[in-house]
């Protein structure tokens, strides 16, 4: 039934997509592998006629490079902290939302709000909330004009102001701010998916559990969580994928310095590392890092899928 007229018509319809994909997707995949495998490759150099040797030097250099290890560490730390926290919190909120009737729609809308924001713009709001105006050295000489609303709240409850993001702030404080911001940003999508999952669970399972006198806690752990497991696996996998590509949320909080004023680059991530290499004509290095990132995401996704195959029913 396939006549030739249909053949070329289909290809005409697909032509724009295919041409663009060839240039901006397929070629980059090939080229990235090529650049990564040519020692110290730079496209400017290549354009000038320079030739590069084949080898794994870029990968070795990247892995040995202290800056990259720091980026990798930051990325993994943020992932490991934010994915469980946001998933658990989203699960609790979704279950709570699912159990109420009045106000459900209003609250659901509120919980979705952070999704429709610009992560750079709202990052600036978070910085404002944590920022201390004045100089803060943790010594007698400090001149604090305003400590920022978060510190004000901490002080209101009798705590001590913390230098979160300013000159001289600690790495732990920086990470804490990032975790809060990333979790805040990650909640809407997870709540949306989990709530959708909860609403599609047959209500009869809950009736049956009720007849059997099941406690709330047991209903949650033995019925809700297992029946929700496909959705949980989905948000965890997408959470990890997103987490390994963390970049603009850090720019949102700390600006392009990727760290507090006295330690720029302290919070840099793998994606940041790749972008930093571009203007410096270090395409080989950037490509190697990008492939490493891809490998990490691939492996983590595989592990997640393997675990969920064992734990997720269906």
């Amino acid at each position, binding site marked *: 039934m*396939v006549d030739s007229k249909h*053949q070329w018509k*289909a*290809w005409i*319809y*697909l032509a*724009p*997509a295919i041409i*663009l*994909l060839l240039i*901006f997707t*397929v*070629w*980059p995949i090939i*080229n990235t592998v090529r*650049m990564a495998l040519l020692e110290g490759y730079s496209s400017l150099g290549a354009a000038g006629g320079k030739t590069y040797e084949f080898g794994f030097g870029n990968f070795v250099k990247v892995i040995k490079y202290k800056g990259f290890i720091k980026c990798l560490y930051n990325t993994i730390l943020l992932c490991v902290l934010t994915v469980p926290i946001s998933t658990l*919190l989203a699960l609790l*909120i979704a279950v*709570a939302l699912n159990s*109420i009737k009045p*106000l459900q729609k209003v609250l659901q*809308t509120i919980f*979705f709000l952070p999704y*429709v*924001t*610009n*992560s*750079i*713009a*709202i990052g*600036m*709001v978070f*910085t*404002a*909330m944590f*920022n*201390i*105006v*004045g100089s803060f050295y943790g010594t007698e000489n400090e001149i604090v004009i*305003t400590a920022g609303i978060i510190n*004000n709240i901490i002080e209101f409850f009798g705590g001590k102001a913390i230098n979160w*993001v300013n000159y001289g702030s600690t790495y732990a404080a920086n990470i804490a701010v990032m975790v809060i911001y990333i979790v805040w940003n990650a909640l809407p*999508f997870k709540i*949306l*998916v989990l709530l959708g999952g909860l609403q599609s669970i047959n209500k009869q399972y809950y009736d049956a559990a009720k007849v059997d006198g099941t406690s*709330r806690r047991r209903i949650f752990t033995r019925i809700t969580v297992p029946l929700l497991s496909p959705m949980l696996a989905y948000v965890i996998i997408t959470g990890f994928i*997103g987490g*390994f590509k963390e970049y603009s949320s850090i720019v949102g*909080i*700390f*600006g*392009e310095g990727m760290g507090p004023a006295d330690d720029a680059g302290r919070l840099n991530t793998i*994606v940041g590392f790749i*972008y930093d290499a*571009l203007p410096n004509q270090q395409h080989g290095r*950037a490509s190697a890092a*990008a*492939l490493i990132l*891809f490998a990490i*995401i691939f492996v983590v996704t595989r592990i997640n899928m393997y675990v969920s195959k064992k734990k997720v029913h269906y």
Partner: protein
Amino acid sequence: MSKNLTTTMHEKNMQQISSRQKVMKFFVKFMTYAFLIAMALIILFPFYWMIISSLKSLAEYRLSVPTLWPKKIMFGNYAEAFNAANLGTLFMNTLYVGIVSTLLSLVITVLSAFAFARLEFKGKDAMFGALLATMMIPGELFTITNYATVTNFGWINTYTVLIVPFLVSVFYIYLLRQNFMQIPNELYLAAKVDGTGDLKYLWKVMIPLALPTLISITILKMMGAWNSYVWPRLVANDEAHRMITNGLRNAFTDTTGDVNYPVQMAAVALVSAPLFLVFIFLRKYIMSGVSRSGIKG
């Protein structure tokens, strides 16, 4: 029959248990609401802080004991922010890039989805599989080469560089193809019998039926343009073509220290406002699109 199954249940004072359970039930409901409202307030707090800060005078903002509502409302901050960040140009640039790229992207997506959903050609399945496989690869991997490519094309600091490289979204093609597949093939065959051309059929039947998906795609694509940061910063960071997010970040490079926060917050509020407006009116489409995609923008 053993006695196990015939002995009656342990008798208990059911009435008492029941009233205790009612108290428990009320307590749980109360805690549920308390938890949800507390979480909602935490979620909302940054928005609240953004708005009230944007309306304060700098002197009031710098009070060591913060005020929860501005003493004197300073709308002037918004005018100042608008001018300081050159928001007018940024808005227009972003809108232009957003609209053009959304329209072109829709055309490409619809044509491809139609080909995959309705037409028969050799290698269709292999082709579609290959497209889906590219979704697994992080976009950062493409950026390196694309940066070099657009440099070679001489596209740096043009609108083209902001529009063309991201016109094709495999995910949107996939989404729309699934939607098209649900439309019964008989409709297509009937149209053929009537002598209706493919494009006319696409326009008159498929597109109206797939409209909700197309609206979702449009909104997500527009939001993507509005929120894009990394690519525009790399390739079009000149005054004439700068996009909104990038412009905002550029205009307020100092994030910490003694920043003029009221003006900065006013700028942030202005940048966020269109997103909220779209959300308020088109919430349904955004939420249904997002729950299927899991990608931001």
